[in-house]
């Protein structure tokens, strides 16, 4: 989708090399912190922001000629872009006219999908931040698009709203073959629905890959609290599947294990060795850890 995308404002490099490849029918998460360049990347990909070098294509069509794409696109960027002088229904109706839609998903169905039917006749400026986001997503869903590009669709939503939208994105991909590209800094929430993620930091792609592979590679974290740290550390280092053993402040040890690692035999061995084990915690791998490690690695490099 984008290749070596770079963008400069004045003397500041905003994007320095963003590479993303989104396959059809996937839910793809474009992840990164606030100001990492997620929105700018999407704006460049859609031709809303001229870029200095590199290329951005959607369905093989360059960003500046997006109107030549024959497939329906659904786009909801940040800010949501609802016309405050119109009601939610009128905003969607306006988009429907622009698309020339006579068939496919209509205004009422799109509003129902995002749970906003009861706000259909509210003016744009009477909506909360989260409701505006949902209205923008509903607008993007009009006419059954084959690609959804959503910028921070979860921002400002309550937990229930986040769940509704994430389940909807997954369902659209699974049942209708829709490709969903969503940008977010809510890494924990999106890891359950994304097939693939791209992580960007300071305008550079620091990691890209399938979520399950990334989590498996990252492994789970172990945290042990015990009295005899020397003996416990020695035991961990000789156990197959345990790596990166580190002493921390107090009587704490940390280590990494594969996601398939069986912990019970280790606990048993620690008790048998009489290391004075008082706490044993296993943290399942998550995208936050993966992201932090990828950023740290990129900074070192």
């Amino acid at each position, binding site marked *: 989708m984008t290749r070596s995308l770079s963008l400069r404002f004045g003397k500041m490099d905003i994007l320095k090399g963003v590479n993303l490849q989104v396959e059809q029918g996937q839910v793809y998460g474009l992840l990164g912190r606030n100001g990492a360049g997620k929105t700018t990347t999407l704006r460049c990909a859609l031709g809303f922001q001229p870029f200095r070098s590199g290329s951005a294509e959607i369905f093989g069509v360059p960003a500046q000629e997006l109107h030549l794409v024959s497939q329906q696109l659904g786009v909801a960027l940040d800010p949501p*872009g609802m016309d405050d002088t119109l009601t939610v229904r009128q905003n969607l*109706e306006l988009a429907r006219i622009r698309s020339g839609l006579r068939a496919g998903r209509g205004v009422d169905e799109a509003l129902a999908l995002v749970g906003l039917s009861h706000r259909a006749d509210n003016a744009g400026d009477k909506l909360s931040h989260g409701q505006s986001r949902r209205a923008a997503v509903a607008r993007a869903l009009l006419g059954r698009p084959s690609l959804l590009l959503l910028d921070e669709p979860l921002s400002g939503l309550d937990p229930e709203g986040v769940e509704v939208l994430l389940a909807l994105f997954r369902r659209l991909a699974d049942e209708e073959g829709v490709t969903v590209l969503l940008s977010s800094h809510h890494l924990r929430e999106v890891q359950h629905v994304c097939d693939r993620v791209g992580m960007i930091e300071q305008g550079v792609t620091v990691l890209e890959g399938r979520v399950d592979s990334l989590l498996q590679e990252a492994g789970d974290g172990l945290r042990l609290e015990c009295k005899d740290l020397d003996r416990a550390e020695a035991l961990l280092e000789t156990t197959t599947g345990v790596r990166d053993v580190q002493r921390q402040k107090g009587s704490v040890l940390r280590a990494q294990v594969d996601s398939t690692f069986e912990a019970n035999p280790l606990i048993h061995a620690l008790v048998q060795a009489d290391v004075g084990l008082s706490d044993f915690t296993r943290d399942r791998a998550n995208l936050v850890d993966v992201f932090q490690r990828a950023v740290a690695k990129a900074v070192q490099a």
Partner: protein
Amino acid sequence: MTGLWRSFSAELYLLRQRKGFRIGILLVAFAAILRIGVALLLFRLGESAGNGGPEDHATWNFWPQLAHGARTALFFAELLLLGLVAGALPREVDSGAARDPFSRRISRSAFMTSRILSSLCVAILFWLVALGAAWLTASLLFEAGDIMEGGDLYLEESEVTGPIYAAFWHALPPMLALATLATLLSAALRRGVVAAGVCFGLILLPGIFHDTLGSIAPWFFADTLAGFGEDSFLAEAAGFASAIAQAYPADFDAIVEIGWIASWPAILCFALLALLTFRRRPL
């Protein structure tokens, strides 16, 4: 359906739904009604004070009232036109609403062309409302006929209708040019207030430098705007019908001719510039 047609249909839908345009139409109509209504009230007060009746004052007639009412309404129409058109696009860009068309197989050129066309529609609509409201109010409150002044026939009705009808037609091209200029500025500038302010400043310029510009002044479309223009044909026609002796002098016909053709190149030029400006604008 082509992108241009879809985009233009959406622009027409926006015009129908936006409160600002509906309020604008009402304000234009109200300006004409108020101008003619207040004129009647003042005449009645003058008559009761012994200052003469319809036979004594040329302005106590349908035709001058129609011209004055229409001019007042067009003054407000021009003001509202530049405010509504120049302010709309920067606000949409700011809120992100302007990005929606381009994910719906509409090119920037098609969008901007449809935006120019819709601004021309607004100008024509305001022009029709101004003339219609003035006509209706003047015909309800004043009687048409020959223009009388001091009890004598000043002008026959047939002498007045020609300049007034011509002035109505001549009011349209500069308004269309104003609408296109406002669209250009809305495409070029980031803030709606600045776009409207610059547009307002530009249409005042020919008036401020009218003496310096001399005979080339009518070549600037804003000089012949019915409401704001220094060489407003409607103002001259209204003065002529009101028995103001120096109004509509013989050499004014030359200005009228220039005014009729001067706006069209401006419309074309502003439209092309708007299309070019919007092509690379970050959204």
